[in-house]
Every structure is written in structure tokens, then in C-alpha cells.
């Protein structure tokens, strides 16, 4: 039982990171119908921003987290404006290939600029571990869970209850109809990329804190897993993406705890295949009903 709760906490911590990534993946997909393969690389940029600002500018955790969100948000806006916007009316596959190109560009660009060495993320918060009846939980795990909770609720508030959120949802549904309401499509898409990328930036700082090691290729696998999480939760559903992220984190931790560490990535992809076969709409996916 103890082991179970221990793994539950570890899984939820890792799952938080996937949840943040999946949320960004999902809102960007919703508005641009684009699988932004560069999303995981924006998360890597966030981790490096944390690394440098904490080490050289002596930022605290909160400052590093917030500035990483701003910088990554800007990076997202620039990526969209430079790489994706010119292709908005092009065939979908052109944008998809471009997204892979942006991903390679960021990975290799960073490898060139900061070398491909793995670095130790600065321990800006001193790790403390609390013993809850044999289950160990660290302050860093708590910070990750709380930060994820706050950001998820914040995103849900923006999307469901603000004018900007309404505009985002309307553009996700129908570009032309949204234009006819007076909504500027380019601005709205930019805001969405900013929000999604900011969440990725936050996840980057959090993973640095948690796993303590970063490198320019660190975004590849989590990016794909976040995509799996978004599919599992149901594309189009915010709670779904968050729950999907937590489930993927739990699954990975469970597989690892059972001694199959080498198969933890495979387990995630098996989930993707099963979901696509059995429940293509995902757990919380909206049913598509056409009305005539």
C-alpha cells in the first residue's frame, strides 16, 4: 500500500509536467489544426531560460518561472508568425512538415549555441522531504503539483470566462464566422500560441527542478507524450488534456515501478494505439454532431 501511494505521488508529479504540455499542445491544435511538433522544444527553451537566469542572474524560482513563461510565450508567437502563418491556407501536411522543421531547428540551434552537453539544473529550491506515514513527498513535488493546478485553473478561466477566451473558442470553430464577428484571426491565434507556449515554458522550469538535468533534445519525447496525453483526454477538452497528462505520468511511473523501465515509453505509445482503436474521441472528447 505504501509503495502504491509513493508511486501515485511520483506519477502525479511527472504527470503534472505532461499535463501542462498537453494543455498547450491541445489549445494550439484546436485553433490552428496543427500538430505543433516544436511544442516540446519550447519546453526545452523554458528549461534553459531557467538554467541561465537562475545561475547567472540569480533569479528565484518564481521569477524564473514567470519570466520563462513570458519568454516562451514570445517564442511561440514568433514561431507561429514566421513559420506557420504563411502556410495557413496551404495543405495541412505542409504545415506539419514545417513544424518538424521548426523542431529540428530549435534542437540543433540550441545544440550549436549551448552545446549538446547535459547540464545540471541549479537547485534553486532546497529539497526537503516530508514523511507521511512512510510515503515520501518532497517540497519540489508539492511545488510542481500546486503550480500545475494554478496554471490549469487559470487557463480554464481565461478560455471559459473571458472575452479573449470566447474569441479563441470561436476561431477554433470557424475562422470565417469569427471574422464576421469582428475578431482578428491573427491576433487570436497569436494569443493562443503565447498561452500554450507559456505553459510549456513553465513545464520546462519545473522538470529542470524535478529531474535536475537538461539538454537540447530533452523536449522530443515529452512533446510526443504530451500529444498522446491530449489524444487520451480527448482533443478539444481542457480537463481532458490535464487528466490525460496525469494518466500518462501515472502509467509511466507504474511501468517503471514494476521493473520494466526500458518499456515505459513503449507503454505510452501502446496507450495511443489502443485509444485510437477503441475510443478515438478520447476520454472527454466532444462528439461531433452535424446539424442540418
Amino acid at each position: 500500500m505504501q509503495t502504491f501511494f509513493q508511486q501515485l505521488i511520483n506519477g502525479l508529479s511527472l504527470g503534472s509536467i505532461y499535463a501542462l504540455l498537453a494543455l498547450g499542445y491541445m489549445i494550439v491544435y484546436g485553433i490552428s489544426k496543427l500538430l505543433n511538433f516544436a511544442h516540446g522544444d519550447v519546453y526545452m527553451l523554458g528549461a534553459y531560460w531557467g538554467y541561465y537566469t537562475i545561475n547567472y542572474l540569480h533569479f528565484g524560482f518564481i521569477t524564473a518561472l514567470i519570466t520563462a513563461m513570458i519568454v516562451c510565450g514570445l517564442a511561440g508567437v514568433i514561431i507561429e508568425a514566421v513559420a506557420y502563418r504563411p502556410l495557413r491556407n496551404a495543405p495541412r501536411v505542409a504545415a506539419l512538415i514545417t513544424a518538424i522543421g521548426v523542431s529540428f531547428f530549435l534542437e540543433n540551434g540550441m545544440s550549436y549555441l549551448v552545446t549538446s552537453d547535459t547540464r545540471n539544473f541549479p537547485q534553486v529550491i532546497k529539497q526537503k522531504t516530508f514523511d507521511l506515514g512512510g510515503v515520501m513527498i518532497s517540497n519540489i513535488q508539492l511545488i510542481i503539483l500546486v503550480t500545475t493546478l494554478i496554471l490549469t485553473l487559470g487557463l480554464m478561466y481565461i478560455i471559459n470566462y473571458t472575452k479573449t477566451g470566447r474569441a479563441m473558442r470561436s476561431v477554433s470553430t470557424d475562422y470565417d464566422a469569427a471574422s464576421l464577428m469582428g475578431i482578428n484571426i491573427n491576433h487570436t491565434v497569436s494569443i493562443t500560441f503565447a498561452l500554450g507556449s507559456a505553459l510549456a515554458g513553465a513545464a520546462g522550469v519545473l522538470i529542470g527542478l524535478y529531474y535536475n538535468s537538461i539538454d537540447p533534445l530533452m523536449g522530443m519525447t515529452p512533446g510526443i507524450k504530451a500529444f498522446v496525453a491530449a489524444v487520451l483526454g480527448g482533443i478539444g477538452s481542457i480537463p481532458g488534456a490535464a487528466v490525460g497528462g496525469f494518466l500518462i505520468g501515472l502509467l509511466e511511473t507504474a511501468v517503471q515501478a514494476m521493473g520494466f523501465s526500458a518499456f515505459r515509453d513503449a507503454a505510452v505509445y501502446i496507450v495511443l494505439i489502443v485509444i485510437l482503436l477503441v475510443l478515438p474521441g478520447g476520454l472527454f472528447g466532444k462528439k461531433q454532431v452535424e446539424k442540418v
Partner: protein
Amino acid sequence: MSKEILEVDQLSVNYGAIKAVRDVSFDIKEGEIVTLIGANGAGKSTILKTISGLLKPANGEIVFLGQSLAKLTAPKIVAAGVSQVPEGRRIFAGMTVKENLQLGAYLRKDKNGVEKDMEAMFKRFPILKERQKQDAATLSGGEQQMLAMARALMARPKLLLLDEPSMGLAPIYIQEIFDIIKSINKEGMTVLLIEQNARQALSIANRGYVLASGEVKMTGSGQDLLNDPAVQKAYLGG
């Protein structure tokens, strides 16, 4: 004599190499209902999309209250006072009825005015009040059409463009939609109406233009066109 609100002059619109609209000219005076009728593919919807800025003209001018619309983006045209109820209604599924109406007022800054107009819409369309918290996709076709019209009116336009408002609706709703158009117009709204249902459209319109293959073939008062043997033969089923 009321003044002109919209003047379309020698408008041409192309889809790639296809000339969908050729040298079309027409005008609308304040307070009028003007209808463009014609068969499928005559270019009616293309003209509306171009006025709204969703398509760019290849040639010609669109002047609204002295301001050229031809180079403006769709949001700027809404801000200028032209709202469109698009073909097929295009309500935002997954959002509530109320949210759809709020989006109609997206560019407005006068919160109190928006609240008031929302109440006015609920009064005019009681079904929307009843269903305000429901997903707009759960409405019937006729109710969705009412929502789309209310949504466009929430922008407080000076000119309302209606693209096939009766298309695909149950007969019981068709009469209701035309009655609503008439009453909105009576309250002072200028309307440009596109319809395949030419008889209904001409019967409520002050003036009409008959389009075929992207060109204006005939124009006259609604009544004259209704009684014209050529129009009757081609568009009113003899």
C-alpha cells in the same frame, strides 16, 4: 429621397481563374430591403462575402456611407457597421446561445448597451432566452437561424447582409424568418437579402436585382420583378 448606404460599382471577383462575379453594380438606400436573386452559382454569395471582406475584389468599388470597403479586413468592415448572417448560419457549436450573442457584440465597448441589446434579443426571440445556457448546436435549424440573426444584430449594424436565411428550414420557420426580416426592417434596419426563395424575397423587398452567371440581368421594384414574365419563368416556377 433617402440617401445611399451602400454602393457597389463594377465589382468583379475571381476564384483563381474563374470569374464568379463580373462588373456587378447595385446600390442600397437607407431603410430599404434589397434582394439579389438568381440560381445557384450566379455569384450572390460571392458578392456578400466580398462586401464583408472575406473575399477580395479583383476590380471595382464597394462604398459604404462614403467609405471604401474594398481594401478593409473583415473585422474593420464589421466595425464600420456591416454585419452578415452567413449562409448555413455558422453558429458556434460547443458554445452556449448566450456566448454566441456575446460574440456578436465582440467589438462593442458599451457594456450597458450590450446588456440592453441582449435583453431586446431575448424579447424578440423568446426561444433564445429559454435556451441561453444551452450549447447552440442543440438548437433546431430554424432556432439556429434566429440565433445567427440575433448575433449579427448584437453588433448594432447599419446594414445587415442575409445570405440564404431560409435555406434548409422547415416551412413553418420560413414564414417566421421572413416576418422577422420585415419587422427588423420596419424598425429602421437596412437589409441586403440573398435568397433562392425568390418569390418570398421579392414580396418583402423594395427592390431586386436578378443575377445570372455573375452579372446583373435585370433590376426593378420587388413587385415589378414578381410580375415580370421572364422572372416568373426563370425563378418563380412559371
